[in-house]
């Protein structure tokens, strides 16, 4: 089976985000990028499926040269081939989904794994949109997946509980934390990844349907107050929690 995993390359969760000079993009100086954490679950799920029923895992990224770093990590974890849809443009979710869907279609993949969202722009839309472009079934926010005899049974995280869903291939699965424990790359995997191919492809001329007008940082939090370091401070703390913060 041909298995596609869509992988985004995003700022490390520990990054202190600053808005760049144009007010529309973040300032990338000093920012460390990582594989989108939800996509790591998608990679792991793709690798598990390959190990179970055999096949080829294609990891597909869309972005600049630096995105190869995340693809390399996926290859070191055990994916077979990398594809970078190369562009320096920023697209909205629907355009990203369309470009990824076209590539997945040309590869002939029957199943697509991706994270439930990218932690940079948090649209939580690309996976579902890919399924729409491809005409695939889609189960989102999946925390548990069992595949038997061509049938997929998934548990989805929903408000206050879980929903159990059954579907068939071809399908898009968007992964939520808890679906698996992503493996670490191995040292041997790193060596092997060096011999694996990352094919760069240029993307078709595309225009986003929505346009970002600008980025704004949240208002800074009020500084904390130290009330003291001994028992006396507790009385004052209780008083302030009751009268000022009104939380007790």
């Amino acid at each position, binding site marked *: 089976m041909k298995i596609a995993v869509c992988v985004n390359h995003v700022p*490390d*969760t*520990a990054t202190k985000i600053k808005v760049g000079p144009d007010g529309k993009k973040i300032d990338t100086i*000093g920012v*460390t990028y*990582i*594989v989108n954490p939800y996509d790591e679950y998608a990679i792991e799920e793709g690798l598990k499926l390959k190990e179970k029923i055999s096949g080829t895992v294609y990891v597909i990224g869309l972005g600049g040269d630096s995105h190869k770093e995340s693809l390399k*990590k996926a290859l*070191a974890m055990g994916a077979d081939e990398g594809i970078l849809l190369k562009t320096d443009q920023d697209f909205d979710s629907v355009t990203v989904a369309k470009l990824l869907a076209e590539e997945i279609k040309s590869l002939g993949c029957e199943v697509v794994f991706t994270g439930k969202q990218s932690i940079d722009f948090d649209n939580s839309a690309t996976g579902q949109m890919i399924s729409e472009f491809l005409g695939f079934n889609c189960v989102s926010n999946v925390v548990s997946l069992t595949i038997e005899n061509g049938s997929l049974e998934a548990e989805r995280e929903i408000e206050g509980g879980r929903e159990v869903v059954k579907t068939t291939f071809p399908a898009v699965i968007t992964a939520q934390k808890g679906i698996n*424990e992503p*493996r*670490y*790359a*191995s*040292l*041997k*995997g*790193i*060596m092997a990844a*060096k011999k694996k191919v990352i094919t760069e492809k240029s993307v078709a001329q595309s225009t986003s349907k929505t346009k970002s007008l600008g980025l704004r940082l949240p208002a800074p939090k009020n500084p904390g107050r130290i009330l003291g*370091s*001994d*028992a006396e401070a507790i009385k004052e703390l209780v008083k302030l929690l009751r009268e000022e913060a009104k939380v007790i």
Partner: protein
Amino acid sequence: MKVLRNSDEFPDYLKDASNFRGKCDLLLLPVHEEEIEGAMKLASGEGMPLTISGNGTGLTGARVPEGGAVLNLGLIPKKMEFNEELGIVTLSAGLPLQTLLQAAEEKGFYFPPDPTEKLCACGGIVATNASGAKSFSYGAVRSFVESLDLVLTDGTAFSLRRGEFIARGNRFDMLPFNQKRALDFTPLHMPAVKNASGYYLKEGMDLIDLFIGSEGTLALTKNITFRLLPKPAGVLSCLAHFSEEEGALDFIDQARFLTGEKKPRALEYFDQGALRLLKSDFPFSDDLAGAAVWFEFETGQEPPDLLIEIILSMFSDCGGKGEIIMAASPGERKALEQMRHSAAYKVNEYIASRGVRKLGTDTAVPAERFREYYIESRNLVRSAGLEYVIYGHFGNSHIHLNMLPENQTHFEAGKEIYSELCQNAVRAGGTVSAEHGIGKIKKDYLKMMYGEGGIRAMREVKKAFDPDFRLGRGNIFDPE
């Protein structure tokens, strides 16, 4: 300055992370740097012994008072000034190490000492000459101290820069606070291993080295200037499991002798007990393995192929189990590092929950004697029927063998073994404490190492700075 006289109000200042407990009559909390000298004089004026207290993360009772007064710098506003051109940082002794590490990283610098507890005060890491995993490549805190602002027990303040006061043989012709006074000392036969036991006393030494590792017995450290290194472009951080512990020891032996660009900066060991302890928090810890090694190499952006090939070949030669896992992101690197530090946290938690004191070795021996020492130590504890976990900075031949006594009877049995393990380390030409210090709980072991003569030499030096033995009383050695 905040002055508290009822010890019921400050129980946290009467213990440390080893669960060693003490008592005192007075807590002094200066709120401005200028009040420190006054606080020292106040304790002196009342004729009280004075214990300097950091953040309470130590493991030897050095910050725990046995009566008298305690002085803590926690309420003083913390300063931290980087001189990026010179690659140095000057900071308040009360500043937590964590704050320094974060700020240094953000500025593209690297401060290698990394003791498990990052909330320790920077003054504390100087007082104990702390180290951590990276000491294999970089040495302990001592290597990074450029200058100290110090205050003597009578309130006399002075600064000391590295290179400023060098002994002529066994004599300092003058002291920074009194140019007419000389100091003669007897050097110690310090072991040629990583060492944090007792004073640093060596022919031709730098006076600043006497204060580093003096465990709050000579002077209070007010401010510190540390030397920083540039942050490496890349770090290869891996965890390798081995079917047998012998394999892990073989791997460390081979890796220890890699040199130049292929020299590892950390070589850390976990025995099966430690892997079991860590399994629930770190699923990649394989508790069916005999042992594991966490190692780090500084590399360029990408680890060189040759280095990877060497590591893989050593892994295969030494009976590696499964695959060597590699951190491929800063978060994963942190997780591997965290795994190592969690081993110590978990042991400390266990000890606190049982209400007994920590029984963990901090011994180091010369590399050529290490394997024999390791096996002998493990067998001793095993044959006594005590539960234990072993981890440590095995690159430095430095072992933390932690006995896990379930009750006071086990603790007493463990204490005897502990003493034997210290004796064996000394016999092998090693040290009884490689990084935690002596404090109040390892004084007897220090005597094993240096004998009465060595203790006398240290006591004589202390007299020159603290004639009434007021400062850090009960640390390292007892007053005569």
